[in-house]
């Protein structure tokens, strides 16, 4: 398991969907979806009602598809539903926590519900709550928790059994800007540092752009796109950079090397640097300047083809195709 975490590119797909169709009466929630998702941090993007939740429930083996089949972490969702769920985590969007119990008790119980022995479950619950930043609060009743803390408990229960894949359904819903940023950092770390593949459902483009390296776009129950998001160095041109530390000094230093830099503000109000990368050496220079100035690079991503561009072009294309039918 650790091997596959260490070499994501070489790992087999975590999700393989073939001709998946789900009808609720006359309403078609999923239109014959064919999809292969690599072991990655995957954004599942779509407007409300696009079929995201139906797809997640199908992949968890909780609803029976009208036709087609799906394999998740190597198990068939219809015939091996409990096996799938033993190795997969799920964080629902809704508030779904018992109020009159402590975070430690509940998360340990959830680990046991995935098949872990009681003692290991208690130990892992304490560790994972520590990971999500609830070390001191874990023996307090959940009813006294803030929305952000409750989201962290939900996240902890979804990874406590060390799953191979975790489904996060709108994990930033209802959070204030600071809480949202912290949650996104945690989500990013689940894949980057913990090595657990992530499927992150959201209708917010920016959230997915920040933490995902692959995107699946659903529109009206149809698959609109399934593709990697532009990584560092994939596309030259404008890159967006977020750093911690003296941002102005950092920008000044880069400018001194003749690299065009602009300071911009993103949707949640954080300052970012827009850097024009004319060739690959610019990335080396950014790294060297960061090291010399003791600055931490928070994120670096291509602006050349943003997720918004992908979304607009693919969703537009599927709608045109639909209208043409």
């Amino acid at each position, binding site marked *: 398991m650790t091997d596959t975490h260490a070499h994501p590119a070489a790992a087999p797909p975590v999700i393989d969907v073939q001709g998946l169709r789900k009808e609720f009466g006359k309403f078609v929630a999923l239109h014959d979806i064919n999809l292969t998702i690599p072991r990655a941090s995957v954004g599942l993007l779509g407007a409300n009602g696009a079929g995201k939740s139906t797809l997640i429930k199908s992949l968890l083996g909780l609803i029976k598809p009208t036709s087609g089949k799906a394999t998740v972490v190597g198990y068939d969702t219809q015939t091996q539903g409990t096996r799938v769920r033993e190795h997969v985590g799920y964080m629902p969007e809704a508030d779904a926590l018992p109020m009159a119990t402590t975070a430690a008790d509940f998360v340990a119980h959830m680990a046991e519900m995935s098949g872990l022995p009681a003692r290991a479950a208690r130990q892992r619950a304490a560790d994972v709550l520590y990971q999500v930043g609830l070390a001191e609060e874990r023996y307090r009743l959940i009813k006294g928790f803030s929305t952000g803390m409750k989201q962290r408990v939900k996240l902890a229960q979804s990874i406590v059994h060390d799953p191979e894949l975790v489904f996060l359904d709108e994990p930033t819903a209802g959070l204030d800007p600071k809480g949202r940023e912290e949650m996104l950092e945690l989500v990013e770390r689940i894949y980057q540092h913990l*090595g657990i593949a992530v499927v992150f459902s959201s209708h917010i483009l920016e959230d997915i752009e920040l933490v995902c390296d692959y995107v699946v776009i659903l529109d009206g129950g149809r698959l609109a796109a399934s593709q990697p998001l532009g990584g560092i160095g994939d596309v030259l041109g404008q890159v967006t950079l977020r750093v911690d530390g003296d941002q102005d000094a950092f920008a000044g230093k880069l400018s001194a090397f003749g690299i065009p830099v602009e300071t911009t503000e993103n949707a949640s109000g954080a300052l970012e640097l827009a850097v024009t990368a004319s060739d690959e050496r610019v990335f080396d220079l950014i790294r060297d300047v960061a090291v010399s100035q003791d600055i931490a690079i928070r994120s670096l991503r291509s602006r050349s083809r943003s997720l918004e561009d992908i979304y607009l072009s693919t969703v537009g294309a599927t709608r045109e195709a639909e209208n043409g039918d």
Partner: protein
Amino acid sequence: MAISPPVNQQPPDRYGEVFDRGYQHYDGKRLGRPQAVKSLIIYSMKRAMGIRKSWTAKVLPFLLYISAIVPLIVMIGISAIVPQMEFASYTDYFSGIMLIVGIFVATIAPEMLCVDRREKTLPLYFARAISRFDYVFAKLAATAILTMTISVVPAVLLWLGRQLVSDSPWSAMKDNIGDLGKVIVAGALIALVLGTLGLAVSSVTSRKGVAVTIIILAFIILTSITATIFEIVDADWKRYFIFLSLFDVFDAFIRQYMNTPNIPTLVQEADFSTLTYFLYMVGLVIAGVLFVRWRYAPRDEA
């Protein structure tokens, strides 16, 4: 438990305070579905008894245990000191604790099902290594086991007490071993019938208070209706109304099953065989289980 080395070997950065232990992958045993079901049974029993909850949640179950067990212990003690004093019969004892068992079920059954629905934790359970039927099975098992602790255990204590205060306890135990089997069967049947019906009621509402009220009122009102009909009606068909009152069905079954000489008038008038009462109770259990299972069957909801 074997733990693989942490994946994150990097030194903690300024955001890494919460991660500086490193994440450890779990390579220990995964016991799957049986462990999940066992955990759900134990967790449900603990929650229903108020264990690891505030003291207010523990009060009612504790009082009910006291009211079922303490008088028994006192009676055994008195009999030991004053041997000529007559012990309460098994049937009298069961009649005496029937209402306590009913209130006990009304306390724990809603805690088993209503809370998970009200707090919307069901999606978390169904996303784990269990099926929907496993969930229902675990809740039924937890309810039945807990109810037996108040219906079977005191009855077994009564049996034990009766043997221990006799002149020759060992031979008394051997002679009366059949009675032990009968009190266990009777106590278990009461637990199963009340437990499954309590869960069936709890499966239709997510409000605990509503479920508690329905269970207690049903128990009292149906018993009253039966008593009234037997009182005022003078026709043969009234005998079937005994099946409305669980209290009277239990009483009739236990008295006939244990060959008690004093049979109440109502039971005499009803005049059904022990087997009929037994099959009726088994039927109620099966109907209750099927109903709860149907309530928790997967439904196509977008």
